[in-house]
């Protein structure tokens, strides 16, 4: 119903619950909500919901689906696993909408409900306290798109030697044909629980009294079966608006060379040798928009950002033998979208360097949850069978281990026969045997008990702040986690300096800044709308304002055709630009077109207009132009460029489109009352037809007392 002004009198002589209905009516009219007071009496809309959506790849569809007109079910709050009998078999009013707390959101309960899906209309999860461990990802992440295939090494394929994520229950990769939503713990959950306790509780074993409290969830997904089917069904005619049913996942990688190259010259660069320092940007959860990835991804890229800052400060003067590329890959969780794209571009001369220019790779994996004072260096045993590769890796290990002098931890090599954990480095190895190391805090399987789940948040990293601090003070407070990550960043920066041929005597001057690290951790995991991010951010958009007050979500999202990266990519781009670039004196218009100036070049650098600080005695921000080598490189799986939607080589993940997603609660009446209403209506209709027929045929008799003159017609 569209809005109506407060002046419309609907059914004027008929008044309902007087005062409250007027108040509600006027309040909603004036607050610009659909002005239909009858619907306000029936439904309570739930606004703070996160749905589980459908994703498709070359062979499967995963996620959840509702029917096109929503799924309605009587609410049942699950108290324990044994209580599941009520919705699945004993309850007299199926279908049920099961409300779970997070401790009950386990694979066994979800599978039982999946098998009885005729009686389950949907599931609603209310996250509360973190369970001791929970990982909805698979036990062997990205097992088919890494380097360990049957042909590469039969023993190492499919996690035969080391199961990386043993706690993984694979829930994210199941397919449900009922909707699953997640609610935040707030007022709306209280309303639902109140409604349940008022109407749905069983009293002394007797039947439930109608009306019952019910919920309806709408999350109808348009795509089915797999990516090839949905791409085929998306009609790509030459009209301006093609009708897409699903969208490929993807985004942008953030790349920065220490010494930038001409960005228009692609392909091999003679006599150039590059060390790649890589980290992963994205993460995932069962409810995609709730991804936080504190240990899974944030720890890695924050460390790399701090290392980049430390290195750039120290390397202003001395030219080195090798260049360093800081690469932040996006979409790695979904079968290595970003890194496979970069390798593809390098192989096909679509990137400024190619694989021959790559000297070695150092990747930072999950580094924040240490179980001792050691960090572990993982390498690939198969490529190390080649002597040159082995020597380079040994050299890299030596550089790493010597970089921890004076720091509170040390690097330990893992067992020689153990393969690499899931990492972007594996995609490079698939193309060429390049020496490289992956840093991680786990020796064999992950220390991360919440790998790719929504419990992998600030609390998991023990980011605790004293309670009496204001948000600004919390931003500046250096936590222990920040200190340990700073040391890792220092070691990484020193290693990269040595790898790039820097002078050994200068090494100990390279130190990462703990204040930067703690501010980044606060911004990415606690509150992103803080003063530091605002200073460094773009004045064009407030990228993080949309997800206030929660931290922004970090899943890769769909690859938009326009040049719009998602919030995380922009944050990392601007951070890297400010930490490694130089501030210039250009004005805003010069910043947009710097080519006209003699010393500036858009081939080598990109120019970003940064918001800047508010000086103490004024209200205007002092914005400035930053010259930086940071570039955004498109990260969409090559399978979509090649049109090979059943590719086994590249990621084929897509996300379904949908029309709307919403949830609401209301009361349902018994079937008997409805049938009674219909019966009464039909009876009234028949009676009135009969009586009217009777009266109209006998009208001249019935109304004959008064004869009007000259009247013959009735």
């Amino acid at each position, binding site marked *: 119903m569209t809005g109506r002004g407060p002046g419309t009198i609907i*059914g004027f*002589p008929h008044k309902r*619950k007087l005062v409250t209905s007027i108040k509600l009516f006027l309040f909603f009219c004036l607050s610009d909500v659909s002005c239909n007071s009858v619907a306000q009496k029936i439904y309570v809309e739930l606004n703070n919901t996160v749905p589980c959506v459908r994703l498709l790849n070359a062979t499967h569809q995963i996620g959840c689906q509702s029917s096109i007109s929503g799924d309605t079910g009587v609410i049942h709050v699950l108290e324990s696993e044994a209580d599941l009998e009520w919705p699945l078999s004993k309850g007299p009013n199926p279908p049920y909408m099961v409300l779970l707390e997070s401790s009950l959101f386990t694979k066994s309960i979800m599978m039982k409900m999946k098998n009885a899906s005729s009686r389950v209309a949907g599931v609603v999860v209310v996250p509360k306290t973190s369970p001791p461990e929970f990982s909805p990802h698979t036990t062997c992440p990205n097992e088919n798109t890494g380097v360990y295939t049957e042909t590469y090494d039969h023993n190492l394929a499919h996690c035969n030697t080391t199961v990386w994520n043993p706690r993984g229950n694979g829930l994210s990769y199941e397919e449900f044909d009922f909707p699953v939503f997640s609610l935040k713990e707030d007022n709306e959950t209280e309303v639902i629980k109140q409604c349940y306790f008022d109407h749905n509780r069983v009293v002394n074993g007797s039947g439930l009294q109608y009306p019952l409290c019910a919920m309806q969830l709408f999350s109808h997904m348009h795509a089915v079966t797999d990516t090839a089917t949905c791409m085929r069904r998306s009609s790509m005619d030459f009209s301006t608006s093609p009708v897409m049913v699903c969208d490929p996942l993807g985004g942008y990688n953030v790349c920065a060379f220490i010494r930038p190259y001409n960005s228009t010259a692609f392909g091999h660069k003679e006599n150039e040798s590059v060390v790649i320092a890589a980290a992963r940007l994205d993460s995932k959860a069962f409810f995609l928009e709730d991804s936080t990835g504190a240990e899974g991804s944030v720890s890695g890229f924050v460390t790399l950002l701090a290392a980049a800052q430390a290195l750039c400060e120290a390397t202003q003067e001395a030219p080195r033998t090798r260049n360093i590329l800081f690469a932040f890959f996006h979409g790695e969780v979904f079968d290595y979208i970003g890194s496979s794209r970069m390798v593809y571009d390098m192989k096909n001369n679509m990137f400024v360097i190619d694989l021959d220019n790559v000297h070695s790779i150092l990747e930072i994996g999950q580094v924040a949850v240490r179980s001792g004072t050691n960090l572990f260096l993982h390498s690939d045993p198969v490529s190390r069978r080649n002597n040159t590769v082995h020597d380079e890796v040994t050299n890299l290990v030596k550089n790493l281990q010597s970089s921890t002098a004076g720091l509170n931890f040390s690097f330990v090599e893992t067992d020689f026969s153990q393969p690499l954990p899931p990492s972007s480095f594996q995609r490079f190895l698939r193309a060429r045997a390049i020496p490289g190391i992956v840093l991680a805090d786990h020796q064999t399987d992950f220390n991360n008990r919440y790998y790719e789940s929504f419990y992998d948040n600030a609390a998991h990293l023990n980011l605790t702040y004293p309670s009496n601090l204001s948000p600004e003070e919390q931003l500046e407070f250096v936590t222990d986690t920040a200190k340990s990550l700073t040391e890792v960043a220092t070691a990484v920066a020193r290693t990269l300096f040595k790898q790039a041929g820097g002078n050994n005597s200068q090494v100990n001057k390279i130190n990462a800044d703990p204040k930067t690290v703690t501010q980044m951790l606060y911004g990415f995991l606690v509150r992103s709308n803080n003063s530091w991010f605002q200073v460094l951010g773009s004045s064009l958009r407030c990228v993080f304002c949309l997800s206030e007050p929660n931290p922004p979500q970090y899943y890769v999202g769909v690859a938009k055709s326009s040049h719009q990266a998602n919030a995380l990519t922009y944050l990392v781009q601007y951070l890297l630009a400010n930490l490694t670039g130089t501030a210039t004196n250009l004005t805003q218009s010069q910043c947009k077109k710097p080519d006209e100036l003699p010393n500036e070049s858009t081939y080598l650098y990109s120019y970003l207009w940064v918001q800047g600080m508010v000086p103490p005695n004024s209200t205007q921000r002092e914005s400035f132009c930053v010259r930086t080598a940071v570039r955004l490189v498109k990260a969409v799986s090559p399978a979509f460029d090649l049109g090979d939607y059943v590719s086994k080589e590249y990621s084929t993940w897509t996300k379904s489109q949908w029309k709307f997603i919403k949830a609401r609660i209301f009361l349902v*009446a018994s079937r008997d009352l409805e049938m009674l209403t*219909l019966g009464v209506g039909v009876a009234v209709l028949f009676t*009135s037809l009969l009586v009217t027929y009777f009266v109209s045929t006998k009208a001249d008799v019935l109304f*004959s*007392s008064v004869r009007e003159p000259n009247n013959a017609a009735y």
Partner: protein
Amino acid sequence: MTASVFFGCTFIAFGPAIALFLFTIARDPLRVIFLIAGAFFWLCSLLLSSLVWFITVQISNKESSSQQKGLLIFGVVLSVLLQETCRFGYYKLLKKANEGLLMLSAEETMPISIRQLAYVSGLGFGFMSGAFSMVNILADSVGPGTTGIHGDSQHYFLSSAFMTMAIILLHMFWGVVFFDSCEKQHWWSLAVVVISHLLVSCLTFQNPQYVGSLVPTYIIVFLVGLWAFFCSGGSLRNLKLCLTCKDKDFLLANHRPR
């Protein structure tokens, strides 16, 4: 609630009106025209009272609930008075139209009597009033939910439907009585019509005690219906004749050539 409630409530609210329309009005195009004109006049009265309501609400104090309640009562009374005024206006228009029609038509008798006009216009008022009362509620009754999550009564749809049926019948009866008393210049019975309309509208302030508003309303429907029956030429004797199926003899007897 669902489709069954939707159809049930539609039939309850509009059943008698549909039956009346089908059997008495639909065949005669002139009656249809006057029905629609009657509906239009009711709509005009609604427009005027909406305008006044809108202005007064905007200038009132929206926070004060007692003021809003007073405003509502004022609005109800004003709307009733405006409806009856429009009914009177329609009566005057129809009288003028009848004279004009008589002048134009070739036959000597009027094609439609004032009593039939009274009935048709009353039904027109009733249709429009019922539509505005009920359509909004019917639209929401199709969904899966019923009222009550905020504490309202569960029987909202059903009682709205019964109330609407009563109002439609009442408008029809009031139309008959109103025109009759205007013809005979019985101003006191006009006042009784207006007062009974006010009474029924104010009875709805009893909601959500639906028993308290529906039962008296139906009593009033019955009484006004009886009054309309007698006004339009009915009598107990005629009713007895019809019911005992002696009407054929009566007709034959009355149609003796004079």
